[in-house]
C-alpha cells in the first residue's frame, strides 16, 4: 500500500487510512502467504513424522499394527467419542493441505508473472530440490488422493479391502508392482520437498540466520532422509518378504 502522490514532494506524508487486520495483512502479502505456507507445511511435516513412526509398527507383526490402527480411533476416549480424535486430525490436515496448496498456487502465479521474459543465455540455476518444489507438490497432492482411496476408503485397493485389517491391506498394496512404484516415487518426491521446504519455512518464519544456517540445513537433510527411509522401508520389507 504505497503513499499517495504527495510523497514525491513530502516524504513524511501521514497515512489517514486504517491498517488492515492481521489476517488480511497475512493473506494479501507475499511474505504473509509464505508464512501460511510455512506453518501449514510444518503441520503436515509433524504429521508425517508421526505417520512414519506409526508405520514402523508393521515390523512387530499384524497383531500390534492392527491394534495400533484401532487405537488411532479410540485415542482421546473417554473425553472424545469413538474416532473423533482421528477426525480432528483429519480436519486439521485438510485445512493445512488446502491453505498450503492455495497459497502455493497464488504465489507461483505471482512469480511467473514477475518474470515473463526468459534469458536467452540459459544456465543451470538452483538445486534439484528447489526446482522441483512446484511439480513435486503436485505429485504429492495426487499421491495423497490415491493413498486415501487405496488404504483408507479401499476404493482403488487391489484385492479385497478389509476394514480394520490394515496390516493385510498394506501387504496387498505392496504386492503389486504399481503400488510399489507409485509409493516409492512419491516418497522420494516427499523427501526432496521436505529438504527444501523445512529450511525455507525456517527462513520464512525468521528463524534462520547466518550462525544457525548449518544447523537448519543439517536438520532439513536429516528429516528428509529419515522420513524417506522410514516410509520406503515398508514396501521394501513387503517386497523382500520380511513383512507378509
Amino acid at each position, binding site marked *: 500500500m504505497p503513499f499517495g502522490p504527495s510523497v514525491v514532494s513530502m516524504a513524511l506524508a501521514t497515512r489517514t487510512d486504517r491498517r488492515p487486520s492481521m489476517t488480511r495483512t497475512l493473506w494479501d502479502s507475499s511474505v*504473509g502467504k*509464505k508464512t501460511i505456507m510455512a506453518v501449514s507445511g510444518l503441520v503436515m511435516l509433524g504429521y508425517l513424522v508421526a505417520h512414519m513412526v506409526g508405520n514402523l509398527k508393521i515390523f512387530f507383526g499384524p497383531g500390534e499394527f492392527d491394534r495400533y490402527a484401532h487405537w488411532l480411533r479410540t485415542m482421546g476416549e473417554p473425553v472424545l467419542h469413538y474416532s473423533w480424535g482421528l477426525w480432528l486430525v483429519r480436519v486439521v490436515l485438510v485445512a493445512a493441505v488446502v491453505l498450503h496448496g492455495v497459497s502455493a498456487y497464488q504465489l507461483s502465479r505471482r*512469480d511467473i508473472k514477475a518474470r515473463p521474459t526468459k*534469458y536467452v543465455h540459459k544456465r543451470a540455476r538452483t538445486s534439484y530440490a528447489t526446482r522441483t518444489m512446484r511439480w513435486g507438490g503436485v505429485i504429492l497432492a495426487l499421491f495423497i488422493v490415491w493413498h486415501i482411496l487405496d488404504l483408507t476408503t479401499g476404493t482403488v485397493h487391489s484385492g479385497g479391502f478389509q476394514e480394520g485389517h490394515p496390516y493385510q491391506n498394506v501387504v496387498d498394496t505392496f504386492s503389486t508392482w504399481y503400488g510399489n512404484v507409485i509409493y516409492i516415487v512419491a516418497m522420494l518426491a516427499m523427501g526432496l520437498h521436505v529438504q527444501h521446504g523445512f529450511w525455507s519455512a525456517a*527462513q520464512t518464519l525468521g528463524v534462520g540466520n547466518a550462525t544457525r544456517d548449518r544447523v537448519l540445513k543439517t536438520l532439513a537433510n536429516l528429516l528428509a532422509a529419515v522420513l524417506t527411509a522410514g516410509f520406503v522401508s515398508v514396501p521394501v520389507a513387503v517386497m523382500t518378504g520380511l513383512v507378509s
Partner: protein
Amino acid sequence: MKLTLRVWRQQNAETPGAMATYEVDRISQDMSFLEMLDTLNEELILAGDEPVAFDHDCREGICGACSLVINGDAHGPERTTTCQLHMRSFQDGDTIDIEPWRASAFPVVKDLVVDRSAFDRIIQAGGYVSAPTGTAPDAHATPVPKPDADFAFEHAECIGCGACVAACPNGSAMLFTSAKVNHLNVLPQGAPERETRVLDMVATMDDEGFGGCTLTGECATACPKGIPLPSIAAMNKEWLRATRKVRR
C-alpha cells in the same frame, strides 16, 4: 582480444527486441566491460549505426547504475559490478551474451536499459528515517551497539542495482527490500518507523509486481555487495513482528 558479442537490441518498450551479433577486435584485457562496450559503440557510430544503449554512471562500483546480464549472470562472472568487471575474465575468441535485467517490474526502456524506478517507490514507502539526526559529529550522541552497527552497515552496502531481481527466477526484490529494511530497523534512529517501514516497503514491493521468495539463493550469489541470503529471513522476522505490533 577478438570477441563475438550477442547483444539484446530493442528500440523501445513497445517494439519487440532480439539478439544482434557484433564482432569486436583489439580489446585489451585491462579494459573494463563497459570500456569494451564503449569501443563497440564507437565503431557502431563510425559505421553510421545506432550505439547500444546501456546504463552506467560512476564506473567505480558504488552507484549501482550499471546493469547487464552477461552470459546469464547478473554483472557477469565475477562478484562485482559490470563496471568493475575486466576483460581478463574472458578468453580471446569468446562469444559473450549481453542481456538486460529481466523482470516485469523492470520494463526495458531501450536495448540494455531498464526502468528501475520501482526500487525508488519501495524506498519512498519507508526507506528513510524521520528522526532528525543532526550533523556528522552528532552521530556519536546516540550509542549504537557494535554488532548492530555492523549489521546495519552490512545492509547499507546495497547500491540498489537490481542484480538480485535479475538473478531471481521469480523476479523477486526480497534481497533489496530486506537490505533497506534491516539497515534502518536495527538502528535507534530507525526505531520510530520500525513497524510501518517493513509493512509498507513489502506492500509496495508486492504492488510493483515483483515475485515472491522461494529461497533459491540466486540473489545473494549475484549481489555485487555481498548482501547475504539470511537478510531475507531477518526481514521476514521484522515483518511478522510488525503485523502483531503495528498500531491499527
